[in-house]
């Protein structure tokens, strides 16, 4: 050690240094840093075991996202919450062929978007949720004269609107927009209920 440390209660190693250097700073009390340089042969193996245990027992990034999704879904209806939990639990080949499990970050965005939509609209109509074979999620709303499908895709959302005209003809509209563009998402939802007369991307 370069410095004489006070008696330590315990030490938390919160992750691997990017280059595995066994030198660094130990912050104390948030204001003082002690430079340490450990005796590699003496501690390498215990440290390795510590690292490995941390990785094996710690929560992964995707698990952290799944945990947040569950928390977000808690503010949705029991039915939606159950559906989101079902989607999160899908495993590879859930369709009996080659379908991928739903990507955690996609499901997180779906849950968060529905939560915000529920908070910001007077009457929230719940969509039907369905997984896609490539690990994304589709949301479907059906009204008398208008249908709306919004699917999470690699680069954001893909929306398809269907409007049944007075002559019975179906008119189709499409649009793509950013995953974080909630305002546009809300515009499409408003279109479904006739509050937006024109397809929002036009």
């Amino acid at each position, binding site marked *: 050690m370069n410095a004489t440390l006070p008696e330590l209660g315990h030490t938390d190693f*919160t*992750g*691997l240094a*990017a*280059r*595995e250097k066994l030198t660094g700073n130990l912050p104390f009390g948030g204001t003082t840093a002690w430079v340490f340089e450990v005796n590699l042969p003496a501690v*390498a193996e215990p440290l*390795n075991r510590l*690292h*490995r245990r941390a*990785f094996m027992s*710690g*929560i*992964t*990034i*995707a698990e*952290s*996202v799944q*945990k*947040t*999704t569950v*928390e*977000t879904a808690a503010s949705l209806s029991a039915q939606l919450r159950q559906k989101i939990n079902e989607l999160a639990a899908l*495993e*590879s080949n859930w369709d009996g062929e080659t379908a*991928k*499990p739903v*990507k*955690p*970050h996609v499901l*997180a*965005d779906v*849950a*968060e*978007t529905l939560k915000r939509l529920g908070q910001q609209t007077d009457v929230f109509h719940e969509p039907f949720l369905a997984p896609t074979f490539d690990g994304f999620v589709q949301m479907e709303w059906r009204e008398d004269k208008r249908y709306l499908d919004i699917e999470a895709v*690699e*680069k954001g959302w893909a929306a398809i609107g269907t409007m049944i005209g007075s002559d019975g003809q179906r008119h189709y509209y499409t649009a793509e927009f*950013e*995953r*974080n563009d*909630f305002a546009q998402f809300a515009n499409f939802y408003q279109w479904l209920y006739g509050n937006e007369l024109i397809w929002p991307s036009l």
Partner: protein
Amino acid sequence: MEITTRIVNVAIESFFKKPLLHKEARYDEVAQRCWEAFSSYGLKPTQIVVRFGDLAFNHDLSFMLFNGNGTFKFTSEKVEIHLQNAVNRKDYEVVVDCITKVYEHIPLPEISHTLITASAQTTAASVDAMQQYMMRFANPAKQIVHGGAIVNVLCKGWPQEIRMTVERSLVFPEGIFFTWQTTFPEKKLSRDVLKTLDDACEEAAGKIDLVFAKNQAE
């Protein structure tokens, strides 16, 4: 030799063409956009912290995600993203999504260049397999018992050199530790750029006869 990825860390620094004074940093808008982009990952508004040092260049906005495995910092001269301990494909997809969200959704000034550093703990099929491979870098006659490699390579589709290091892992007995470093000029990072870089890093490993196993656990 085939290897399996066990842990991946990614660090990205995008430097601005000119440093931002505090009044130019628009932290209110940046904070709002960060919350919009990352609330689905559990980011609470109060976790976004702006540190005001002075009116010139000493200031930053930062937040953490994933129990400290993700840190994001916007300073007067650069944006820094650190994501560590990705242990499977699902984690890696979240990592890519986080990086993409920063460049797609957060208002950033013009970028001069981006430094990208990634490291990976990988494992071979066995300790013997690892040792046999790594022997190519050792020289028992000169008592060099372990070695490694530093190579600068050009890869298909990636515009810059990639500096790659390979050495024995300190974490896994059968492990090999990689780092890759490269730069990306001017443009913002996108999902497509990161996919190209991912492929380039695999290609770089292939140049020293290390092949990443496909169909790794989801």
